[in-house]
């Protein structure tokens, strides 16, 4: 061993796409945050200047993540996971509240959002749990075990409250499904979402009536097979109970701005000056782009700061306005390429741990990509989560960088040559 050298072959395609996305992200953050007070590219008082620092520190993080022995991640997954949970719990004592959510630690002016890092630690913990030789995802006991691993951070994040970030934990259903979780769970999740949305759109009473009619029709059609009437009744009661609890939670637990966010997408609110404003302005900005866009720093909506949070969650609207259909498509295709590449690589992993982790990374990135661009282009509810690698923010950038590069490291470790 002493004489042997270890060669590590990293997947340069993933790294290249990462660099491309981070670079394009900065270009657009520059445009979205440009103001008269700016003193050149390297003005570190400006948002784009700070993002440059975060990017610089990301390189340090990448070197660090890649330097660590790949076995370390599997071996210490549980410990890392527990430490990260503690960081979430700690927020309730030491956390800083911004915009109603206590999601931040304040280190002398630099805010750190632990939930951005917990995605990666949860993925490690889940991969470790699922890849355990004794774990079988078809076993109810193990299913509950996995659910607990996911539910702990998700609940802690909901309590901040930051339901947008908590939503991301739904992504883990994909790696679990890949590892043998019954497809019914996937369909159940889908059906629950449909029930959820239609309850908000039409009200619990109408949904209950609809469910009863649907069950009646199904029962009638299947009557020759002598269906179990008790099963039907139980399912109907379950659905109705779900609808009414959703209704209760929406009206009594949710805060007004959460309700508003859903109402916009369901078409209940059309006031362009009120709460639909963000989405509306974002759509206008994107529409302005046309085929080729208005050119860098030339977007009128971007310059006028019409789109709120444009450098963070709504950064894609800057791409749409200034780089047009062409630029937007490049970003969309880069994301699609990155995620499919990760899935492709995950399937090639020698260890189950690597595969589960890879799938988790792909699923998390996918859900961010889907929810964020869906929101910015007005086809999904307004849920405040960032576009990976693109949006402004140190915590988010570092969180995604660690998430991705642990997989790059795990993947690279498959090609050890002794």
């Amino acid at each position, binding site marked *: 061993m002493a004489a042997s050298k270890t060669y590590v072959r990293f997947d340069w395609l993933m790294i290249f796409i990462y660099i491309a996305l981070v670079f394009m992200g900065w270009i657009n953050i520059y445009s979205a945050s440009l103001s008269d007070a700016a003193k050149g590219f390297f003005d570190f008082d400006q948002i784009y200047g700070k993002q440059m620092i975060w990017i610089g520190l990301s390189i340090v993080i990448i070197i660090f993540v890649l330097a660590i022995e790949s076995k370390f991640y599997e071996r210490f997954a549980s410990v890392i996971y527990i430490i990260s949970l503690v960081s979430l719990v700690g927020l309730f004592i030491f956390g800083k509240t911004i915009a109603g959510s206590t999601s931040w630690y304040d280190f002398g002016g630099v805010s750190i959002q632990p939930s951005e890092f917990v995605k990666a630690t949860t993925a490690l913990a889940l991969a470790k749990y699922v890849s355990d030789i004794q774990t079988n995802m078809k076993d109810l006991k193990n299913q509950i075990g996995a659910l607990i691993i996911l539910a702990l951070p998700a609940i802690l994040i909901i309590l901040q409250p930051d339901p947008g970030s908590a939503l991301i934990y739904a992504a883990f259903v*994909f790696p679990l*499904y*890949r590892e*043998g979780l019954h*497809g019914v769970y*996937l369909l159940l999740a889908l059906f629950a979402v449909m029930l959820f949305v239609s309850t908000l759109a039409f009200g619990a009473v109408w949904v209950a009536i609809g469910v009863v009619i649907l069950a009646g029709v199904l029962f009638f059609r299947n009557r020759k097979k002598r269906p179990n009437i008790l099963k039907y009744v139980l399912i109907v009661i379950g659905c109705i109970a779900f609808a009414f609890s959703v209704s209760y939670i929406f009206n009594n637990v949710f805060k007004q701005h959460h309700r508003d966010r859903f109402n916009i997408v369901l078409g209940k609110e059309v006031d362009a000056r009120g709460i639909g404003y963000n989405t509306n*302005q974002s*759509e*206008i900005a*994107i*529409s*302005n*782009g*046309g*085929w080729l866009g208005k050119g860098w720093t*030339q977007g*009128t*909506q971007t*310059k*006028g*700061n*019409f789109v*709120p949070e444009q450098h963070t969650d709504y950064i894609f609207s800057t791409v*749409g306005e200034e780089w*047009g*259909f062409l630029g*937007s*498509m490049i970003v*969309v*295709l880069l*994301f*699609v390429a990155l*995620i*499919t590449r990760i*899935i492709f690589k995950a*399937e090639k992993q020698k260890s189950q741990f690597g595969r589960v982790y890879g*799938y988790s990374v*792909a*699923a998390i990135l*996918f859900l961010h*990509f*889907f929810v964020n*661009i*869906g929101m910015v*282009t007005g*086809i999904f509810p307004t849920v405040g989560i960032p576009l990976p690698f693109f949006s402004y923010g140190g915590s988010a950038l570092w969180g995604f960088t660690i998430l991705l590069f642990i997989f790059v490291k795990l993947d690279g470790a498959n090609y050890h040559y002794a």
Partner: protein
Amino acid sequence: MRKVVLIALVLLTGLLFSARLFYLQVYDASPDSLSENSAIKVMYDYPQRGYMFDRNGKLLVSNQPSYDVMVIPRDVKPLDTLEFCGLLKITKEEFKEILQKARTYSPRLPSVVLPQLNKADYASLSEKMYKYEGFYIQRRSLREYQVDHSANVMGYIAEVNNAIIEKNPYYQMGELIGTAGVEKEYEEVLRGIKGVKYIQKDRFNRDIGPYKEGIFDTLPQRGNDVQLTIDATLQKYGEELMIHKRGGIVAIEPDTGEILALITAPSYDPSLLVGRERSKNFTKLWYDTIGKPLYDRVLMGEYPPGSPFKTLIALIGLQENAVTTEDAFPCYRGFRYGNRTLGCHSHPSPLSMIGGIANSCNAYFCNVYKRIIDKYPTPQDGIDAWRNDLMSFGLGDFLGYDLPSGKKGNIPTSDYYNKVHKFPEHRWSSLATISNAIGQGEVLLTPMQMANFTAAIANRGYYYTPHIIKNIIGPDTIPKKFTEKHFTAVDEENFYPVVEGMHQVYQRGTAASIQVPGIEICGKTGTAENFTKIGGKRVQLTDHSIFVAFAPMDNPKIAIAVFVENGYWGSRWAGRIAGLMIEKYLKGEITRTDMEKYVLEGSLEAEYAKPYSGQPFSINH
């Protein structure tokens, strides 16, 4: 299956986003133009409207600054309505109505809340404007009239309406456009070109500088000044003479076709249609359906021309070789045909052409007219030939002058008589149309047309299209059509006997009473019967007093037509006014002060009140 679900979802999402982006950016990229972009404010810089001068360089109208309160409904934030209404001096209800209207027009484009503030109102309001988001003050330039006459000539400007905006995208709500007179006819010359500034706004509606460093901005271009052919002194004098009368005066320079004076009565002070009282005043003028001050009688009024028309019959008679100057016709206190008589007044008989004109003998002109028509194989051919000759004097059709209103008048066609007499079942002869001989019957002329044919007689055979524009200052041009001679169908030599007849009118005929020392006038009086309807019944009113003239006889400088509604005989009002106008124009002062006093002090208001009194009344006294 387990391996492909996530990949399939990723690819589907990619497709979904591509479709959505294509829809937003390529297929339905609606907010494209700068003016529709919510981040760009379009500001207009209105140029000064061109001034108007009279033919001698006297300033008629200039500009004054005015301030409009404008609103962009989309940008309006909740405000202290009560306070704002107090500043604007309107009620809350009015304010709500205005705002609703503006919203209906467009939530994005500016609408006028309150037009034409004066400087004092502007000063007190502008300090507080910052409180009211979505509202702003737009500076415009308004007319400032230097004279209190010529309202009908200059016309007025008014806010554009939706119909104009739809037709012509240059105009925006609240902008002004010439809507009558020279203001309308020469709108594009006078208005100049407004400048545009595109300003980048932020989401708080604050200006953050010019859009793209102003590369799309344009500078306003001042409108051109125009010099009119009007003689301000003559115009003013004519309007004074016409006070308490209805009708009009048209004076033309025969050498050029330039309109020296264009007077309609009653008229109004042009300043009434400027400022905040504008709409009140306009409504008042608009609803004066008896005096009709906004109705230009000299351009729009179609009247039976009466006896001045006889000069044209004489000219056509000579041209068609239907009559010679020596042919004399007897007058039996009228013209007898069948068992009817077209009456005449007492004068020597028989008369040849010059005497016929001087005494305005109806019988003489009936005979001449009959000969003209009957010279042709059928009365249809006769009428059409007669009509063609008349049209060469600019009758029966639009003259083509440069004012935006007018009427064709009427010279009847053979088709018309065929229809009336149900030809061919029933035949008709020249006698059926005999009233045409004396300018009654179906013949209708506008006073402008009367002045124009008088100018053609003054020129002995041609005229220039009458026009109001003397010079567009800057390019120093006028439209070419105003410098082209129009020859009449009558040869020059045929004019001399008619001119001599018109001179006799003045020397010893029907207009001998208006003689002005030192000026040889040629004229023709007219006394035209006219009717109105009262309660559905046709009632005759006092005759119209008409006079056409040119002077001096040789090398004429002015041709004039005067029309006084219900003024009775020709020389009573119209003749006197024409005499005074000619003297004023040629000499610059009045020697016939007796005549001036008569006209200035005289009033026909009592005459005009008769049909509305509801009482029986007598006419022609």
